[in-house]
């Protein structure tokens, strides 16, 4: 299954190659023209109707870690790639470098702690990866400084509709985009799988500059906090209540006309829809929106619980409804039912 392959792929910001290969393989029967740029963005080009140029974007990269030094004892120190909360790192299995070496992030035994220590966060400086190397030289045979690290999380189904895995932010968006690109539209479609979103929306801007889209749709796996002890006003999105439309986040204010059309389509086709109810965080839309003389954008997301942690959760009905909504939106644009 594509979402499983994408979720389990190794691809922190700046190291998206494995994800890129999966995407090209999956889309080979449907995409004739591929573009790649200096940063590693992968752009699928479809149609040459001379019509509207529509950019669809989903980022390939995930949050991860990078090896920064090796202790004499063979333990590995690391830095964070993207926004990871230090608190999710403790007691985890990770995969290091291109040889995919297993490692663990441990913690001092509870027996050796003072009682108040258990209420304090273990700082990054107190964490390291243990790959079982017995010395620095031993470790250097298996890994090198600068190697990327991801969590060793397997994709699993908890029920017919709920699945868990790592990096649904934004492999869920990538999977949506793949499904959307399998259809044909009377539009010039640019399917941009972008790099380096997690470290500052780096890929999307240069991709949009080259594409010069008339409008853009960003596909995301977005935050969802509909769990205790969050209060309902802090949920941001709710799992299972449909695709989430962003009105505004820290990086962008989305195009009102596009939002209105999405709401209309959802209503006409009985697709559940929700608005993202927080304005924190950014997305590729922020960069695309401000490219060249400006691009109208909208963000459509699959709600995902526990993003930026070793394991996230999404609802497959939300996922399929997101695909459906995006496809209908593109058809509506092509049919001229919607004018900017």
């Amino acid at each position, binding site marked *: 299954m594509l979402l499983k392959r994408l979720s389990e792929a190794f691809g922190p910001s700046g190291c998206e190659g494995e994800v890129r290969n999966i995407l090209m393989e999956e889309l080979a029967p449907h995409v004739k023209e591929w573009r790649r740029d200096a940063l590693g963005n992968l752009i699928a080009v479809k149609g040459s109707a001379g019509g509207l140029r529509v950019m669809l974007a989903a980022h390939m990269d995930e949050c991860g870690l990078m090896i920064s030094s090796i202790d004499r004892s063979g333990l590995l120190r690391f830095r964070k790639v993207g926004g990871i909360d230090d*608190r999710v790192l403790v007691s985890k299995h990770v995969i290091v470098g291109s040889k995919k*070496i*297993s490692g663990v992030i441990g913690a001092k035994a509870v027996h050796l702690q003072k009682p108040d220590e258990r209420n*304090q966060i273990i700082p990054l400086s107190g964490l390291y990866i243990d790959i*079982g190397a017995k010395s620095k030289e031993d470790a250097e045979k298996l890994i090198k400084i600068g190697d990327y690290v991801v969590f060793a999380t397997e994709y699993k189904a908890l029920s017919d509709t709920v699945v868990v895995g790592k990096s649904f932010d934004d492999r869920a968006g990538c999977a949506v985009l793949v499904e959307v690109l399998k259809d044909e539209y009377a539009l010039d479609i640019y399917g941009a799988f972008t790099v380096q979103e997690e470290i500052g929306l780096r890929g999307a801007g240069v991709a949009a500059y080259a594409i010069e889209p008339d409008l853009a749709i960003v596909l995301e796996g977005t935050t969802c906090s509909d769990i205790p002890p969050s209060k309902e006003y802090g949920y941001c999105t709710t799992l299972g209540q449909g695709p989430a439309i962003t009105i505004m986040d820290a990086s962008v204010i989305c195009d009102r006309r596009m939002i209105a059309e999405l709401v209309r389509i959802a209503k006409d086709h009985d697709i559940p829809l929700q608005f993202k109810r927080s304005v924190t965080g950014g997305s590729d839309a922020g960069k695309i929106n401000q490219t060249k003389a400006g691009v109208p954008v909208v963000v459509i997301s699959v709600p995902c619980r526990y993003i930026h942690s070793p394991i996230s959760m999404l609802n497959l009905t939300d996922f399929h409804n997101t695909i459906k909504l995006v496809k209908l939106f593109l058809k509506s644009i092509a049919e001229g039912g919607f004018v900017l």
Partner: protein
Amino acid sequence: MESKEFLKLMVEQTGVSGFENPVAEVIKKAFATVADDVCTDVLGNVIARKQGEGDERISIMLAAHMDEIGMMITKIEEGGFLKFIAIGGIDQRTLVAQEVKVHGKRDVLGIIGMKPPHLLSPEEVGAAIKMQDMVIDLGLPIEQVKELVTVGDLVTVHRPFIALAGDFVAGKAMDDRAAVAVLLECLQELQKIRHKADVYAVATVQEEVGLRGALVSTYHIAPQIGIAIDVCHGEMPGVPEQDTAPMGKGPNIALGANIHPKLYERLVEVAKEHNIPYTIDPVPGPSGTDAWAMQVTRSGVPTALVSLPLRYMHTSVETLSMADVKSTGRLLAYFIASIDKSFVEGLLCY
């Protein structure tokens, strides 16, 4: 069976204190391949007996606990989220963003998640998340949760066995199933060498909640020598070197009030004789292991303690060296081969 394979089978099985049955089944099967008989007592201790040669009836008991720390469901919240408490000494910080198994009507996978960094308020970022504020998310509607889960169900971290570089391995419940693997290693070694003592290898229950399995099994067996095999803290950054033992350098042999001095001396002699590396663990007071309970059973039992260096104790990535498992098993086998009636009688002469 290869001890690494045995250890993998054990740590991927469940056996929270008081509910050791699933892992006990795995252990019984493995012990049956090398023991004369295997039985289970009232509390669930698995006792394998391997008879010695000759007419001198001397007995030695080896104890390693098979129970693990875990959690228990206390409430099903609105939305189907589960509240829980700890069984045994759990560091709440090791539970965040963890996959867990809720052992309900069937094993149900779930997540202990946390709010993404995007939504955290400034006051939420400064401290560890408290266990009382965590929930288990099964991703199921509450009606389905209630069909599968009831208050009192057990929870363990879902952590498949991890093979690290060299001979290091990692996973949950290595404390103290790595020592149960030592028991098997020892029994296998004893098939190759002659020994006079009857050996009782016991996988004990309820150590993590108070050394309870060792207490009753020692009473039942009434051994003349008791040796507990447990884990100690392996060397790691952030912990003073003097509180740890080096990894891969053999068993850590304890001495102190919990240890009969002649047993300690003999263990060290045997290690030297067979070129088995070892380190020394001075234990000034309570050892916090099954040895503590064994020593004061009935009219008293001469007791020793041998430990495997292990990093990250009571996390789900407890790490240790398989070389230490093997060398500890050999040490115990050669120790057992070295004892006879006069040695046992000498233990009572102070």
